[in-house]
């Protein structure tokens, strides 16, 4: 068997060459004696991209920092005399021995005064303001404005113009590095150059341009400022674009966003200036815009010479707004995390105190807080000593820790509510109707770039509120863009993230793309076949990712055949295709494949999985019914009945499960709620299960939505037919769906849609079916398009395909939209959609990656390696070994794809993760590798026995009398759709030469091929 090792080694070499894009961690079915990847050197190195992205090395950044940035062009204020005439300091500096080093000797020749903006400001902003600014005033010193700096702190004036010896600022920065009092206290001391600059500046009278306020910055901030200073500004936007203030308690904060010519965005809120045109109507301070009196005015936001006017309307300026339990207090619970599943939102609460998860039950929460243990949680006599508050600020021990400060707005909301008597809200309290997160899109450049987000909630009474401070923020990819509790996005590594804000029952998101700072990139010219390519490339451009090139013909025919028909092309087909010079040969191949019956079978199988077609015990779903159901589905798809019609027939089906097989849909799942959940998951790609007990934590679905949707299925009747195996499904015409919490009767309402008028005699399901499988339902076509896409790329535009939710957004929403529109336009004809997809350059890309797209997993910049699904793998093994399978209920030689009953399986299929169809979840089809898969391929009868019993090698050598080199070529082509490479062929042939049993050697080669990753993967 020694040659076996060699063979494997050779094959692996080839595989590694072929699949060089594969991640080592995801190795599948690794044979026991793997060749060390290190030994394998890629023969075909990936083509280097035309433009190599320049990686900014940290060292470069640092050197740049060392040089103070040049003054910004926007602020060309001449350095004039100090705005404030230096007065004699009120108290002489404490008489301390001057520790200043020798450098401090009086300078004879006066050096030039350093420019404040370019030299001094950066030093102060980076090193001082963090502790001596508006946020903190250590030692009661502020250095962010000139008067404060002159006034000084506890120990005297920090700056004494023209006399740096008396300036404490200089004294403290010039101390020895290990001195206790040196400033800055953390990090390296200021460089001698910086100290000198400051001295010179003070010696020159410490000129500080009027009204300039400094704010804390990091070095990276300065670098970034520099970066943006060299860009061309395209637009300045202010969010929200208009402000309406209702009641005296209302306020809004503005966020100013600058967009540059390379589409990058930057938060310039702190750099912009604001001026209100009528200060008697609205008041402006650093915390936002506040109402003053009724009327309208506007605020002018100026940045880099551009003005944006934001209209302001003020209403009820003198009327206070009462603190409401639902609108003010409950959001605090959510923001502080009190009602999350791990705390008081868990089903049993914490320590006996339960809040509804994310506040799905406001009345219940009010009851539990105020009246469950009437004297424990709140104290209306001394509201400050209510346990609810004391625990929150950890004035008493709290397992959940301190959630907010005493005196914070959260604390005050609850306190005021308590002071008002802890009342519940009246029934007509305005409800939030939507929320919005702003800015809607970000393109951040460079790690550390920040952007403050704003969240606006709109209410049923037409008002809106700035709920940024009450929203809960989350990023779906902290690696690329993280977000703080306060809503500040910080760019991390290159990539994209979806920034989510949650408030009340709503979750909204904003897309944030992060690119490295100073990336040199120019958009490559990439061929585009159709809209798919256009939209994919558009997204790649935003990410500054360069797509891979096209795959080879060999790879294409293998990939397409497997994807569309689930078979491998035979050698003839391969030869024909590869030798063809027809520029449209790929297109033609796709058309041919689409016309094969295997294409239909593939999709029958996929739908059978979604519909859970399988027998169930006790004749609940008999084999006969299963078969009839499957045949019904097959017949519909084979005759090209549009999928919307099929779904409508399915959902509105009535009659016996034998006579009208579509009714099996309601027999396979008999629980009303689950029927509803499955319908949402299968046909709309949404998992609404959570909303059965509480509002969906990461999506818009409320319990009301859930039970209203389930109400469509509340009138299904089932009765026995003559045949005990048959069940008759009919419309009972009665039966209500009741809300879990308050027992309200819920009327049918489309999920995310309108509430239809349904006459009493009409079958609710018919109404639903008509809506669900139609263009009116925004999710139907999208979901199917996504499923189709996922089939061809291994990953959906939304992934997983049946987990559509606000917080799991599409990686390319425009693409998905377009696909779904087309799908609708095509009258739900799969073939046309598949044609679009397969003909695209995107589908035809190679698996090889380049530097810019190596980490891309969701944006289709290169082809993905995909293991063949269990049925297809078994079928192709059967195909290449010329053997036959026998499955229960099917004739010998049938393909695994054709199996009707989900319960029919064999060891191979189970091992490779065939869906058991017990649930509708897309996760049923398991593609994860396992040891048993590897062992089964290596040692199981599926390879070894079939090679023997199929007698292919015997046929080649002994019947067709092919020379070994041709036989080897045949084996390679039939399995991998390519000829062996020279490196592969040579040693194998050498072994064949040396061995007596040529058939045995070739069978072993065959075995090795079947075990190769190149075979079991589509690539």
């Amino acid at each position, binding site marked *: 068997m020694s040659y076996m090792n060699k063979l494997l080694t050779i094959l692996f070499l080839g595989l590694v060459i072929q699949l060089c894009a594969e991640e080592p961690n995801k190795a599948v079915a690794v044979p026991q004696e793997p060749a060390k990847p290190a030994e394998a050197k890629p023969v075909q190195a990936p083509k280097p991209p035309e433009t190599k992205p320049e990686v900014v090395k940290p060292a470069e950044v640092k050197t740049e920092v060392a040089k103070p940035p040049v003054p910004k062009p926007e602020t060309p204020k001449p350095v004039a005399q100090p705005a404030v005439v230096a007065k004699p300091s009120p108290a002489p500096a404490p008489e301390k021995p001057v520790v200043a080093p020798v450098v401090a000797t009086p300078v004879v020749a006066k050096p030039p005064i350093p420019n404040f903006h370019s030299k001094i400001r950066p030093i102060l902003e980076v090193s001082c303001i963090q502790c001596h600014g508006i946020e903190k005033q250590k030692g009661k010193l502020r250095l962010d404005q000139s008067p404060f700096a002159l006034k000084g702190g506890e120990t005297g004036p920090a700056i004494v113009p023209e006399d740096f010896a008396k300036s404490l600022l200089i004294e403290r920065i010039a101390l020895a590095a290990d001195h*206790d*009092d040196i400033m800055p*206290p953390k990090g390296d001391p200021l460089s001698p150059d910086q100290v000198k600059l400051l001295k010179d500046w003070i010696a020159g009278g410490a000129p500080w341009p009027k009204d300039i306020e400094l704010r804390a910055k990091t070095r990276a901030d300065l670098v970034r400022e520099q970066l943006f200073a060299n860009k061309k500004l395209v637009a300045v936007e202010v969010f929200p674009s208009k402000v309406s203030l209702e009641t005296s308690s209302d306020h809004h904060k503005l966020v100013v966003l600058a967009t540059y010519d390379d589409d990058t965005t930057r938060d310039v809120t702190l750099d912009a200036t604001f001026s209100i045109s009528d200060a008697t109507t609205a008041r402006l301070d650093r915390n936002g815009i506040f109402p003053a009196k009724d009327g309208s005015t506007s605020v002018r936001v100026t940045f880099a010479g551009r003005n944006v006017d934001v209209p302001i309307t003020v209403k009820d300026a003198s009327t206070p707004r009462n603190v409401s339990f639902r609108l003010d207090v409950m959001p605090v619970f959510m923001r502080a995390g009190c009602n999350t599943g791990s705390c008081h939102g868990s089903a049993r609460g914490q*320590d*006996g105190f339960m809040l509804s998860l994310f506040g799905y039950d406001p009345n219940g929460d009010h009851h539990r807080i*105020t*009246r469950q243990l*009437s*004297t*424990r*949680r*709140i*104290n*209306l*006599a*001394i509201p400050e*000593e209510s*346990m609810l508050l*004391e*625990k929150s600020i*950890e004035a*008493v*021990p*709290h*397992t959940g*820790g*301190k959630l907010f400060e005493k005196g914070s707005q959260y604390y005050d909301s609850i306190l005021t509510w308590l*002071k008002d008597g802890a009342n519940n809200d009246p029934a007509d309290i305005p409800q939030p109707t939507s929320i919005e997160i702003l800015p809607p899109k970000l393109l951040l450049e460079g790690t550390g770039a920040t952007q403050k987000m704003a969240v606006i909630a709109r209410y049923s009474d037409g008002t809106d509120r700035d709920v940024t401070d009450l929203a809960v923020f989350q990023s779906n990819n902290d690696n690329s863009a993280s977000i703080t509790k306060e809503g500040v996005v910080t760019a991390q590594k290159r990539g994209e993230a979806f920034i989510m804000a949650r408030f009340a029952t709503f979750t909204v998101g904003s897309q944030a793309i992060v690119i490295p700072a100073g990336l040199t990139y120019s958009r490559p010219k990439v061929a585009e076949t159709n809209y798919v390519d256009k939209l994919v490339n558009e997204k790649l451009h935003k990410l500054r990712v360069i797509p891979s090139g096209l795959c080879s013909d060999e790879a294409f025919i293998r990939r397409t055949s497997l994807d569309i028909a689930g078979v491998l092309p035979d050698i003839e087909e391969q030869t024909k295709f590869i030798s063809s010079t027809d520029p449209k040969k790929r297109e033609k191949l796709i058309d041919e494949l689409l016309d094969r019956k295997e294409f239909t079978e593939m999709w029958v199988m996929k739908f059978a999985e979604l519909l859970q077609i399988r027998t169930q015990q006790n004749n609940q779903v008999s084999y006969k019914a299963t078969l009839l159901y499957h045949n019904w589905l097959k017949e519909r798809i084979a005759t090209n009945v549009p999928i919307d019609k099929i779904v409508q027939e399915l959902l509105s089906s009535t009659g016996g499960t034998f006579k009208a097989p579509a009714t099996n849909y309601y027999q396979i799942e008999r629980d009303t709620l689950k029927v509803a959940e499955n319908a949402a998951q299968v046909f709309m790609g949404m998992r609404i299960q959570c909303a059965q007990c509480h509002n969906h934590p990461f999506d818009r679905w409320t319990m009301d939505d859930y039970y209203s949707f389930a109400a469509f299925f509340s009138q299904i009747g089932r009765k026995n037919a003559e045949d005990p195996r048959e069940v008759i499904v009919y419309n009972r015409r009665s039966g209500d769906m009741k809300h879990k919490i308050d027992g309200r009767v819920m009327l049918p309402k489309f999920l995310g849609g309108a509430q239809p008028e349904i006459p009493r005699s009409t079958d609710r399901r018919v109404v639903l079916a008509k809506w669900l499988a139609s263009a009116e339902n925004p999710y139907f076509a999208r979901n199917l398009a996504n499923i189709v896409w996922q089939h061809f790329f291994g990953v959906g535009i939304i992934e997983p395909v049946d987990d559509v939710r606000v917080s799991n957004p599409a990686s390319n929403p425009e693409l998905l939209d377009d696909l779904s529109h087309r799908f609708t336009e095509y009258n739900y004809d799969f073939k046309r959609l598949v044609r679009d997809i397969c003909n695209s350059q995107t589908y035809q890309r190679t698996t090889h990656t380049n530097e810019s797209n190596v980490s891309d997993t969701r944006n289709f910049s290169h082809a993905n390696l995909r293991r063949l699904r269990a049925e297809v793998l078994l079928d192709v093994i059967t195909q290449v070994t010329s053997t036959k399978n026998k499955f229960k209920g099917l004739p010998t030689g049938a393909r695994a794809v054709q199996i009707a009953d989900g319960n029919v399986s064999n060891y191979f299929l189970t091992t490779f993760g065939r869906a058991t169809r017990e649930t509708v979840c897309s996760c049923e089809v398991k593609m994860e590798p396992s040891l048993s898969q590897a062992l089964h391929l290596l040692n199981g009868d599926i390879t070894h026995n079939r090679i023997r019993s199929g007698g292919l090698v015997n046929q080649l050598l002994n019947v067709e009398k092919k020379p070994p080199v041709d036989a080897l070529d045949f084996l390679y082509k039939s399995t991998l759709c390519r000829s062996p490479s020279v490196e592969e062929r040579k040693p194998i042939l050498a072994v064949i030469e040396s061995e007596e049993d040529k058939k045995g050697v070739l069978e072993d080669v065959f075995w090795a091929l079947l075990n190769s990753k190149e075979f079991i993967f589509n690539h």
Partner: protein
Amino acid sequence: MKRAYLSLLIAAGATAQEKTTWEDHVFSLMEASCISCHNPDKAKGGLDLSSYSNLLKGGSSGGSVVPGNPDASLLYKVTAHLEEPYMPHKKDKLSDAQVALLKNWIAGGILETASSKAKKAKKSGFNLALKVTSTGKPEGPPPMPEHLALEPHVLSERPAAISTMATSPWAPIAAVAGQKQALLYNTDTFDPLAVLPYDEGFIESLKFSSNGSLLVAGGGRGGKSGRVIAWDVKTGRQVLKVGQEFDTILSADITADQTTVAVGSPSKRVKLHDTSDGEMLHNIKKHSEWVTAVAFSPDGVLLATGDRNGGVFIWETFSGNLFYTLNGNKGAITAISWRSDSNIVATASEDGSVRLFVMTNGREVKSWTGHGGGTSSVHFAHNGQLVTCGRDKQVKIWAQDGKQIKAIGGFADLPLEVAFTHNAKRIIVGDWLGNVTVWDVDSSKQVGTLSANPPNLASRLNAAQKHVVASEAAEKKAKQALETAKAVTAAKAKQLSIQKVAVTTRTTEKQKADADLAVSKQQMAQATASRDASTRNLKLIQDKLAKTNLDLKTNETHLKNVRSTQTKWKEQVASRTTQSGMLKAAADVANAGSVKLPEDATLKDAAAKAVAAWQAMEKALKEARAKDGAANGEVQKFEKLTASFRQQSQLDTNASQTAKSDLAKKEQVLKEAVTRVAVATKLSTDKAAGLKAAQTAVTKSDAGLKAQLEKEKAPAQAHAQSVAQLAEARKKVAKWQAEQVNVGRHVELSSLGKLDAEFDLLKDKSNSAKSIYEKAQAELVAVQKELTDAPAKIQAAVKSLSDRQAIVVAESEKLGELNRIVADKEAFLQKTDAFVAELVARHAKEPANNELAQAETQLKDQVRDALLTDLNNAKARVVAQQQTIETAKTTVFNAETHLAAMKALPGKLPPVIGERTKVRDVSKAEFDKTYLIEVEFAKKVDAQRNKVNELTGKYLAMLPK
């Protein structure tokens, strides 16, 4: 930062006198940050940081502190984040100041308290245990608060939900939990009786002891701490503080004998504490959830406890052992109440039920749904009725068989607590809004309210003063109204008397008028009679005249008739004469004609007829002539008659004229009389009307007066009332003024208490100084006595020595004797042995000699043994004797030593005496000093007592009677 740290250390150093101690500094830090995980109930890592002693014990990682060495102390290292696991677990690091405090404390040697001395043994200042406990009503008047301070301890803007209430079993007292205070009210008068401060936090449980003399409160700060406090109801003094918990106490109770307190808390434990020293007697781990209710049976034998899962257990108080498990409740237990015979216990639960369990077997005897949604409170009255309230916002009274007797509804929010008053005549209800209302059981009507957030005395006084002002105004107004009414009455009375006089006058007038009328009437009667006679006469005459006239008229008529008849007949005669002529002529003609024509019948007939007519006419003429003649005679006759009657008529007419004029005269007289009567009658009538009017007026005025008198009552009453109110209001003012003084009095009283305590300490000190002095004195005296006694003692010692020496000699002689005996016996034994040897030898030679063998055996086995025993006894005696001699020698030695010591005494004692004298002098000085202080302090105490007494006197004097 470094600077801050340094300054803190410096600060710590600067206040070195104020040492960092467990009690003053560290405990509060532990309480805030550590105890939630490291307490006796939940000792994470086996470490309990809730008490000094347990902290010293350390946890599973060993000792937590090494005194004097913070860096070796785990407690410091983990909190300073020098070592994992960082503490507090998963929370922010302690502030630098706090870490420094810990370090400082450890470095300072982990002092428990500031005093260097050992902490004074903890003892409850009051011995609460009762020698005799009775389960019924205690003898004598039930304890009532006596002039306790009423200034609220905490005043809030509004009350909070009523967490707990209790009523005294024997007195009209209700205790209501306010904010950090318990408030006592009189349930008969609703007067406030006391404000008992509870600085430990918020009270969650109030219970009166079985005899009503103590009020026990459990509570604390939620999530942090809990304590049980008890007050003496009479004096308001806090007499107990036990049971440290780490969350608020939910329920607490005290046994009837007042030796044991039970505590239920979120720790899920039931803890029993000894009231004398606070020691925990039992820590019962059985409940699976928070212990929400604990209640001792009124006899104190059993303890019932309930938890938030609905678990209810009965325990033996004495042993803490489980007695019964009471099953059935499905929701949190909200309250437990015992029937006064300690045999039935009632539970209230959030499942809505009320359940009764009997203690003879622990079974549920009755259960019913009290309140849909949850029953919040239950209370058993002495009469066996139960009162409950619940989430249906109702209060219900039940018989013990579950029959609903009454329901009171209409509460604006949840009634949370309910209790019967001591006599079950009223019920007290506390609700979620903080209202406490009192209801009369019989009428189901609300009769009063108690405030859970009473105003302070100043505002009470202010209100009372305002009330006085208002009352004064009201009184003035009422008085005015009364006076107005009285004036009206007087006016009316005056009017009435005038009217009464008028009535008398009118009566007289009427009588006179009546008399006049009578006379007039008589006259009129006479006149009438006279007139009537004249009338009659006239009538007679007139009748006669009329008859005469009638006759005259008849005659005249006759005359006329006769004359007319005569005239007629004369005319007849004339006419008939004419006609007869004519007829004769006609008849002649006719005859003539008939004659001419005799055959004509018609003519003949006509001629006959004409002749007949003529003849008839002739006859008639004759008759007429006769008749005329007769008529003429008649006329003559009647002419004569008529003339006579005419004469007669004239006569009669004259008579009539006379009579008429007479009548006229009479009529005149009558008319006059009638007029007179009419006048008199009118007068009389007028007078009668006048009288009547006067009488009516009188009646009316009388009624008016009466009504007025009646009317006057209301203002009078109102006035009386306003006067009473005013008095009451003034009383209130006096009361609140007095109560303000009382507050001061209580302040002084509490200083007095402190002074008393201090005085006790001083007395202790003085007493101990005294005893030290006395001891020193006694010692001195003893030494002096020793010195004086020395010669005699030496003598005695010499004698004793010689005696003892003599004994040694005597005993030595005895020993000699004994030794000799031993020697003899040994010699004899040797002889015997020799003889035996000889015998053996001989027997060897003569083996057949049986006697020899026998002798040999006998000698060997019996004689020799006896000899040996004897010898050994003798030797033992020798040893004993030697021991005796040794002892004697020792005594001799001792005596010698003693003698030597005695002999040394006269030389040694004087310095000792000097020293003792000094000690005595010092201790005496100390005693004198402390005594002086004591005396001085006694004056201070007395002064304070006088002050208190004075204030008491003032207060009592001010109190309205």
